[in-house]
C-alpha cells in the first residue's frame, strides 16, 4: 500500500501536471512547483478526495510545502479516524 508521502506526491503531480519523481518534501507549492491561486484550491480539494477527509479551508491553504501537507494530512486522518 502506498505511503502518505507517495499519495501526496501523486496528487501534487496530477494537479500541477509535473513528474512525481522530482517532487521533494521541502518543495514549496508556489515557488518550486508553480501552483497558482486556483491550483492551490484544487490541490486541497484533491487531497480531500484522495484521503477521504474534510479539511479546514484556512488551515489547509496555509500549508505551503509538500512536507507540510504530508504532516497536515496525517494529522487530519488521525483526527477524523481515517485509516492510513
Amino acid at each position, binding site marked *: 500500500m502506498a505511503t502518505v508521502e507517495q499519495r501526496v506526491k501523486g496528487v501534487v503531480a496530477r494537479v500541477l501536471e509535473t513528474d512525481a519523481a522530482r517532487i521533494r518534501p521541502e518543495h514549496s507549492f508556489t515557488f518550486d512547483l508553480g501552483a*497558482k*491561486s*486556483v491550483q*492551490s*484550491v*484544487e490541490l*486541497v*480539494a484533491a487531497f*480531500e478526495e484522495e484521503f477521504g477527509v474534510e*479539511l479546514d*479551508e484556512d488551515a*489547509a*491553504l496555509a500549508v505551503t510545502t509538500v512536507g507540510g501537507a504530508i504532516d497536515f494530512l496525517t494529522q487530519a486522518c488521525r483526527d477524523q479516524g481515517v485509516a492510513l
Partner: protein
Amino acid sequence: MSAKTKSHPLVDATQPNLLEETFDYSLPPRIRFDQPCVEYIDGQALEFNLSRAQSRDIFVTDTTFRDGQQSRPPYTTDQMVHIYGLLARLGGPHGVVRQSEFFLYTKNDREALDRCRSLGHRYPECTGWIRAVKGDFRLVQEAGLKETGVLTSCSDYHIFNKLKFKSRKECLESYCEVLAAAFEAGVRPRCHLEDVTRADLDGFVLPFVDRVMEMSSHVPQHLKPKIRLCDTMGFGLSYPGAALPRSIPKLIYKFNRECGVPSELLEWHGHNDFHKVHVNGVTAWLYGCDALNATLFGFGERTGNPPLEAAIIEYIALKGGLGGVDTTAITELADYMRSIGLPIPDNYPFVGKAFNTTSAGIHAGGLRHDERIYNIFDTTKLLRRPPRVAITDKSGADGVTLWINDFLGFSNNDRINKMKCHKVARWVADQYELHGRLTAISDQEMETKVRELMPEHYAQRKKH
C-alpha cells in the same frame, strides 16, 4: 521636507479596534466634528460650530420635476405620480424630503400636481415655480399652493446681459413688486437668487435681501419669504478660506447673520459643473441653510443637481439615525428610473449596478471573511443590495466562492468553502488563461456552470 514634531509609538493590540462609534455598520458612517471651523470674514475671525447642524431641523427639498425635467424629455403624469409616491415613502413621516416643486404652466403640469396631491401625503409638500412676473401668481393661487419659487436672478450677467434691466435699481424694484404681489396673493415667495456665486454681493445681492427682509417684517410667519441660494453654474466652493462670492460658508454667513435670514428660510440649490455638487450642498447645510434642494440621482440642467439620495444618506450620517427615512425606496426609485429609460452608470454610488460589487479576488476574500471589510454599510438592510462579486480574471477562487454562496443563498454555517467550488473556479480561470476572454462572465453563465459542475449544491439552493 517638514521637521518631525511629534512621535507616534505603536499601541499594540490583540483585538481589533473597529472604531464602531463612527463605523456602526447598521448605518452610514457617522459624521463627527471635534472642533469649530474658523473663517475670516471682513477681517474678523469667526467660529462656526458645524455640529449644530446635527440638532437643527435640516431637510431635503426636491426639484426632480422642475430642474430635473430641464435635462430630459418630460415625465408622463403617471411617472410623476409614481416617483412622488416613492419620494413620500423615502422621506418618511417627519418630512426629511420636505417639499417638491412643480411647474404650473401647462395642462399636464397641473394634472401632475393635482394627482400627486390627491395621494394625500403630508410630505413632500407641493410647491410651485414661476417667473418673476406678477400675473403668474394667478397660476399659484388657482393651484391652491402656499409657496412658489420666483426667479430673482442676482448676478450682473443675468440682470444686465440676460434680463436687460437698465440698472440694478430698476431690477430690484421689479423684483420687489413681484414679492409684494406674492404677499397680496397670500403665497409665500421663495426668492431664487440665480447665479449668486457670481454676483456682486455688496452691490446688489445683500441690499436686495435687506429689502426683502424689510418688506417681510410685517407679514405673517407663513408668508415670510425664503431665500434660495442658487449656485447656477456650480462655482460655489466649500474650502475654508475661499473668497466671496464663491465661498459657501461666507455667503451663508452674510445672509444668515448679517441680513438676519433665519436658517429655516435659507435653501441651497447647486449644480455639478465642477464635480462639487454634493459636498457643496452639505456644506450649505453645515453652515446654516436648513434646506438642501436636490434631484433624484442628480438629474438636472447640464451636469445636474445635488443627488437627493446622497443627501438622504448624508442626513442619516449627520443625525446618526434614520429619522423615519425609508432608504429602501432609493433602490426602488433607481429601478424605476432605469425602467423608464433614464440610465444610471454602473459605478454610481448607492444605486449603480456595481456600486457594491467587487471583481478583485483579494477583495472578494475580504468580503467572504467579513463583509464590512469591503462594504460601506449594511447595504442589504438599508438598500436591499447585498455586496456582490463580478466574475472576471481577477476574481480567483475567493470571488467565485463568494458569488456561488450568494447565488445559492447560503449564509453563515451553510456557506460552502473554496474546495467545493474549485471546478467552477477552474472553468473561470480557463476562460481567461486558455481562451483569451476579455469580458466579465455573466450571472447567467455562472448559473449554468454551477448547475453543471455542482449539481448537488445547486439542488440545495435557497434562492429561486
